[in-house]
């Protein structure tokens, strides 16, 4: 009983964020329970570790051989059934208890409440898309969820295994291609939490990160409303910056902004090349043949748009057909437009300080452009 009591005290000595010595901050309805189980096992481990270590050191010191010449007496028993049974039965009892506690806790983790708020998650190398069917919103690498409401994520993968993990919620589930997996949690504290991909998925596995924002119900509704209209409401002039800061993160692992060759062509100078019709395709033809009046693409914009929505159609020489072709279902027309405009105005964006020399997006500072809408979004997140 004292073990239990001690475990409870340990588990409850938490700081303001709910973090303990071992565990990170706790922000979901199950965190406390999991932490308790963890500490419960810990206490058992401490006891046995101390026991083993003390006995080990004690014997080693007490029965230390003074010199090699010391006579070997052969004292002490060579077997003892009572002892053997003791140290078989006690650990058996303990592990049964641990298993039981763990199983109960696990069942809670698996059975999601009926009235959960559902979000569809698509994982692909190396980004996350979160879709809110109720609001017609798709977010990339960011997930907004309501406070104190069970949320159920229904997850699928477009390529290889991934795993969705939010340490603060103590939940994790692999996302497996070829099937749906699901996960639920109830966030109990507003704030932003790190989300990781914890199943190795290739080169940029460690960059497959996202943030979960927990918002109180009313703010959540407002946020969803805003996100749903975000693109529509945005002033035209802000579209490129919007695309750069909000959408480009899902392109960045393959398309650089500084000329570096990644899996896909760099965006730097792309517009000019396309406008001039430069570049050849794996089918042996050149872009020139497709462009211009009477060609397949009247305008560079049309070519770029199709490259986003139907990337497999024409593959640039020296590149492979690796771009996911499901963006049509994840981007709204105006977002596509924004992306195309972004490519078009990349130089301007760089001049304005949105992009630094190394081709990194400078998200936090929002320089000259009058981006009221985006700023609202930022405010909202900080307020949350």
């Amino acid at each position, binding site marked *: 009983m004292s073990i239990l009591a001690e475990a409870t005290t340990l588990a409850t000595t938490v700081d303001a964020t709910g973090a303990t010595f071992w565990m990170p901050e706790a922000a979901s309805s199950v965190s406390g329970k999991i932490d308790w189980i963890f500490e419960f096992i810990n206490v058992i481990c401490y006891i046995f570790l101390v026991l083993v270590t003390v006995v080990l050191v004690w014997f080693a010191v007490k029965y230390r051989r003074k010199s090699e010449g010391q006579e070997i007496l052969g004292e*002490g028993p060579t077997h003892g059934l009572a002892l053997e049974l003791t140290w078989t039965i006690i650990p058996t009892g303990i592990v049964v208890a641990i298993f039981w506690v763990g199983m109960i806790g696990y069942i809670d983790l698996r059975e999601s409440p009926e009235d959960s708020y559902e979000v569809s998650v698509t994982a692909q190398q190396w980004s996350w898309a979160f879709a809110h069917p109720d609001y017609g919103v798709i977010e990339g690498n960011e997930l907004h969820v309501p406070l104190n409401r069970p949320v159920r994520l229904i997850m699928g993968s477009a390529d290889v295994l991934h795993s969705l993990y939010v340490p603060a919620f103590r939940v994790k589930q692999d996302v497996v291609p070829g099937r749906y997996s699901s996960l639920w949690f109830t966030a109990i504290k507003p704030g932003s939490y790190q989300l990781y991909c914890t199943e190795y998925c290739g080169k940029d596995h460690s960059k497959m990160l996202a943030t979960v924002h927990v918002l109180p119900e009313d703010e959540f509704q407002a946020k969803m409303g805003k996100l749903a209209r975000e693109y529509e409401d945005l002033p035209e002039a802000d579209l490129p910056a919007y695309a750069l800061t909000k959408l480009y993160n899902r392109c960045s692992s393959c398309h650089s902004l500084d000329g570096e060759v990644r899996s896909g062509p760099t965006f730097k100078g792309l517009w000019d090349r396309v406008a001039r019709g430069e570049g050849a395709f794996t089918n042996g033809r050149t872009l020139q043949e497709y462009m211009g009046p009477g060609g397949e693409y009247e305008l560079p914009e049309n070519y770029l748009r199709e490259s986003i929505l139907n990337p497999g159609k024409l593959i640039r020489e020296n590149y492979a057909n690796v771009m996911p072709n499901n963006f049509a279902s994840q981007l709204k027309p105006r977002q596509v437009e924004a992306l195309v405009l972004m490519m078009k105005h990349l130089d301007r964006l760089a001049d304005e300080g949105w992009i630094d020399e190394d081709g990194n997006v400078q998200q936090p500072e929002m320089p000259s452009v009058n981006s009221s809408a985006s700023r609202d979004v930022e405010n909202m997140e900080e307020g949350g």
Partner: protein
Amino acid sequence: MTTLELNPDQPKLVDDNYLNHTRGLWSWLFTLDHKRIGVMYLVAVLSSFFVGGVFALLVRTQLLTPGGAIMSQQQYNQAFTLHGGIMVFLVIIPSIPAALGNFVLPIMLGAKDVAFPRLNLMSFWLWIVGALFFVGALFSGGLDTGWTFYTPYSIDSRPEVGAMGGVIPAVTGAFILGFASIFTGMNFIVTIHRLRPPGMTWFRMPLFLWGIYATAVLQVIATPVLGITLALLAVERAFGIGIFNPELGGDPVLYQHFFWFYSHPAVYIMILPAMAIISDLVAVHSHRHIFGYRFIAFSSIAIALFSFLVWGHHMFTSGQSALVNVIFSAITFSVAIPSAIKVFNWLATMYKGSISWNTPMLYTMGFIFIFTIGGLTGLHLGTLATDVHLHDTYFVVAHFHYVMMGSALIAMIAGLHHWWPKITGRMYNENWGRFGFLLVFVGFNVTFFSQFMLGSQGMPRRYATYPEESGFQIYHVISSVGSYVLAVGFFVTAGYLAQSIFSGRRAPANPWGGRSLEWQCSSPPPHDNFSETPTVGDCYDFTVLEWKSEEEGYVWRSDSKRPGQESPEAS
């Protein structure tokens, strides 16, 4: 007569020993002598360990800074894959059975050789070929799948997003290494069954042999499944047969079942021989009869059998069904019981012993401490609710380094020191040995204890970079510093061991006071192991031995009776 007759306990100091029995490189490379094969395995395994260790240091160095200090993402992925793969397939699985076991098993048994010497040699050469293939993966496109080769990533050969081209060479290598391991196991089972000389009954065998026997059972039964798994993986990657590839209707979770059906038993292929070494060393260096012989012996067999029933505990969050999760979690804990029995029996063996604080014993005590931590943290992982949080974080990394590096490998090093005089005929410097142990022990715990904290805080494994604001950096720095200490420790160890070969004191037949048969032959042993037929008795009864300072080793006590003799042999 000669002094040898006066002192029959001390075998002849034969000048013709297995090391110089025949000469020339050829006589080594194609030897059928189990001792030489063991030594060649030892050299091979230790070299691989250094290669794996260098990769480990690269990994640790990369993680000093959140953005990654020295490598690109892809280089890092290759570094940890090769680190893990080399350490598992090339180092730790063959280390104790194939290297040390090959050397001592027949001698301990009182046999002249293993049952199938040619098969033994073939096993070694298969190892070499397998190792070349495995490491060749690095040069045939690179290998970045992690040591688990999870599908569908590993069968996706698209250059930019899929696994690199080294997958097929690497799985071919692992396949071949698997057969090297199978042949070792088969050989040992047959040797133990059929080559025990009269008098060497099952319960007279040193516990080392029990452990190796249990290991061999695992090697024979589990490893073929790895073989077929990897073969399927290669065929899937090359031809697209749709067994593991979801695009063709295959099932990636089924692959994980296949993989862990072997690889969980494999972790006991690593730890059982380690426990076997410890069981013997703790008795010899405590100069005290082992406590609970039968319990230790049978717990080895129990671990071997249970270990086939728990593979699914690596798949708790993989999409395995809840029902099977619960079953596997329950059975997982059953393995903890025989392990606990062993730990407590070792402690009880030390009770009222006469404990030498020499290097092998220090490593042995280090093992008991580290294995307790490593094993106990296995409980966190076997528990469903907590494993969901801990899976694929550094907590798991810390757990398995505690049991693989801190236990299995440390036991191997303990055994290496223990049998070093027997293998080389030379004594190493004991003080340097203790100093090396200190560095390794401290370095190890600093490196990996911090990783427990990293893991429970949420740091995922196989990450080349980590978010700056996560607060993980400080732990990573501590861990990396620890790994440098560890490296210095091994460097020191390698140094004094190498030195001993050239200028070490000549080893007596029995420097520690062991009673199993290998201490009855000279150091190093003669070509045929025994110039005199050894006597089998209770190999844990040390009271019959005494220290003889002229020999600087232990000899038969003048007033005690040898087994098989009617009266004490007066000299």
